[in-house]
């Protein structure tokens, strides 16, 4: 509804999207990407590989958050698309396509599969959608297992990356990952900024009211669903490129949902910056405690519950509310006209 940038409202408020801080942070974002891009020149292959998996987590968290935090769709089955991306890459390389091209194509393929899937799944609400997606993931997993050419249930390796010299493979994979992360996050960012973000916000507030105002609820959700599928598909393909070996149980496993849930809840459900922070936190925790077995997962689950109940907008949400930081503005900020726009603290500012 509110579309004017810097437009005036009757009550002495001004609608604002870019604060001075967010202009600065956009510049910082560009700088971070540049710095990340030179990492393979400065560090060894192991650091590069580690950073690749961090970026994969970032993609996954942002995609899951786009669905849950903006579309109101809690999916327990995004591993359906992670698995499709990974196995799609295997399939395409088996048919003579170069690995990195195959990865991108497999990601887009996951998105193509998501279109008919959405026709059934988006008829479901809430918990029905959640478990329905889980069934979809199980079905895809079983179908892949039934194909002996894809290694059946025993797993399969990615061939074709061995043409690169050691060290270069990790570097190339990292650059591809960085490029994909930038493009995918940029895509989600601009999607949420455009009309679809506003209409989805209205849907989250009151789905029926939004529909009666002419917001095309299903279309908006479908766009998000397909984008999230592409993102998860590419993440799955990148995961394959980083580990070189996959099994159906590892890529179609529900543990991916546990990771995504944790990252998004801890970082901040429904904020753009939160999932990125959540992914970094998750990455650090995994590096620290990943070997502690079952207790590690108990801790993840319990932390996710605690955040859902006591800090529903996560760490970023709490920081945002206190400091009114709006680094990468997806929503709009409402400011009183008599306060100078430079000051950050305005109690009337809207939440994202």
């Amino acid at each position: 509804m509110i579309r004017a940038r810097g437009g005036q409202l009757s009550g002495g408020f001004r609608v604002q999207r870019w604060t001075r801080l967010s202009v600065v942070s956009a510049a910082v974002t560009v700088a971070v990407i540049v710095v990340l891009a030179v990492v393979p020149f400065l560090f060894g292959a192991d650091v590069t590989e580690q950073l690749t998996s961090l970026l994969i987590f970032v993609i996954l968290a942002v995609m899951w958050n786009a669905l849950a935090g903006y579309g109101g769709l809690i999916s327990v089955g995004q591993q359906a698309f992670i698995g499709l991306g990974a196995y799609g890459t295997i399939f395409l390389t088996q048919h003579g396509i170069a690995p990195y091209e195959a990865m991108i194509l497999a990601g887009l393929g996951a998105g193509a599969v998501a279109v008919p899937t959405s026709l059934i799944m988006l008829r479901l609400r809430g918990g029905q959608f959640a478990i329905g997606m889980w069934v979809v993931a199980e079905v895809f997993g079983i179908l892949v297992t039934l194909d002996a050419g894809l290694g059946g249930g025993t797993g399969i390796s990615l061939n074709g990356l061995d043409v690169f010299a050691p060290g270069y493979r990790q570097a190339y994979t990292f650059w591809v990952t960085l490029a994909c992360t930038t493009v995918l996050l940029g895509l989600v960012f601009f999607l949420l900024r455009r009309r679809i973000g506003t209409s989805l916000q209205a849907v989250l507030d009151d789905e029926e009211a939004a529909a009666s105002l002419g917001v095309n609820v299903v279309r908006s959700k479908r766009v998000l669903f397909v984008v999230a599928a592409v993102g998860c598909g590419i993440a799955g393909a990148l995961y394959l490129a980083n580990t070189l070996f996959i099994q159906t149980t590892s890529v179609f496993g529900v543990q991916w949902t546990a990771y995504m849930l944790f990252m998004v809840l801890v970082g901040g459900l429904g904020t753009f910056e939160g999932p990125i922070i959540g992914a970094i936190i998750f990455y650090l925790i995994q590096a620290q405690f990943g070997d502690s077995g079952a207790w590690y997962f108990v801790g993840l689950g319990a932390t996710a519950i605690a955040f859902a109940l006591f800090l529903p907008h996560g760490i970023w949400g709490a920081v945002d509310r206190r400091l009114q930081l709006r680094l990468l503005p997806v929503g709009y900020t409402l400011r009183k006209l008599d306060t100078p726009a430079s000051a950050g603290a305005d109690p009337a500012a809207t939440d994202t």
Partner: protein
Amino acid sequence: MNVLVQGVLLGGFYALLACGLSLMFGVMRIINLAHGDIAVIGAYLVWVLVNQTSMPPWLAALLVLPIMWVAGYVMYVLLLERSRRAGQLVPLLTTFGLAIVIENVLLQIFSPDDHSLLSSTGTLATSSISFGGLTISIFGMLTLATAVVVLIGLQFFLSRTTSGRQMRATAEDPDVAELVGINARAVYAKATAIAVAIAGLGGIFLAIRQTFNPSTGPTQLIFAFEAVVIGGFGSPWGTLLGGIVLGVAQVIGAQVNPQYFVLFGHLVFLAVLASPRGGLLSRRGRTV
């Protein structure tokens, strides 16, 4: 024909698993993503009682039900009450978190190895009667009969008792239920307790009919959910029918190729979702 009978008996088991899931959804609009893991807790509890104290399985089962009842009550008070008030999506997040916690605590205590009550239940689990070329498993019959008794019991409770009527009223309009003197919170806690106890009962049957391990739960949740959806989120009889359709589909799939057992069930479920009515006995406005 044998396939059909087997499928129907298997359906009885799924219906039993589905009762609690359906009840919680009907009363609170919450889908408990830890439902399957809760059933597995029931299985482990019976296993521990039988193996540590060598008590007969039926006695262990009688002890486990009240324990699960109390656990359900505690689960509502500690987890679901706050989740429910926090919004529609939060119960999904917290019950999924709970599922992760349960699975991994079980893993830590019991190791990933398979457990089973088969050896402790004598011939009950394996014997069958046959007539006219049909082979009918005694235990399968017992499971189906239990499911039917539980469904009839739930039906009776909801329609004939004060407590059940209060539950239906709260399911339809919790605000107004409060205004006529019903403590909605207590009703929700009771519904959760019943659902968890029935899930525990399902877990006991699970422990006797097959091996189980800490990661058995999610599959049980999916089967239970499929039974509820195929039945149309409606009446108890819909749930029973849904369970039977799912069971028959799986058994037919296994007949075609053993690897198709689970797949056929999933496909029937997706086909029902894709159909315009979205459920075999779906009727709008039914609560439980």
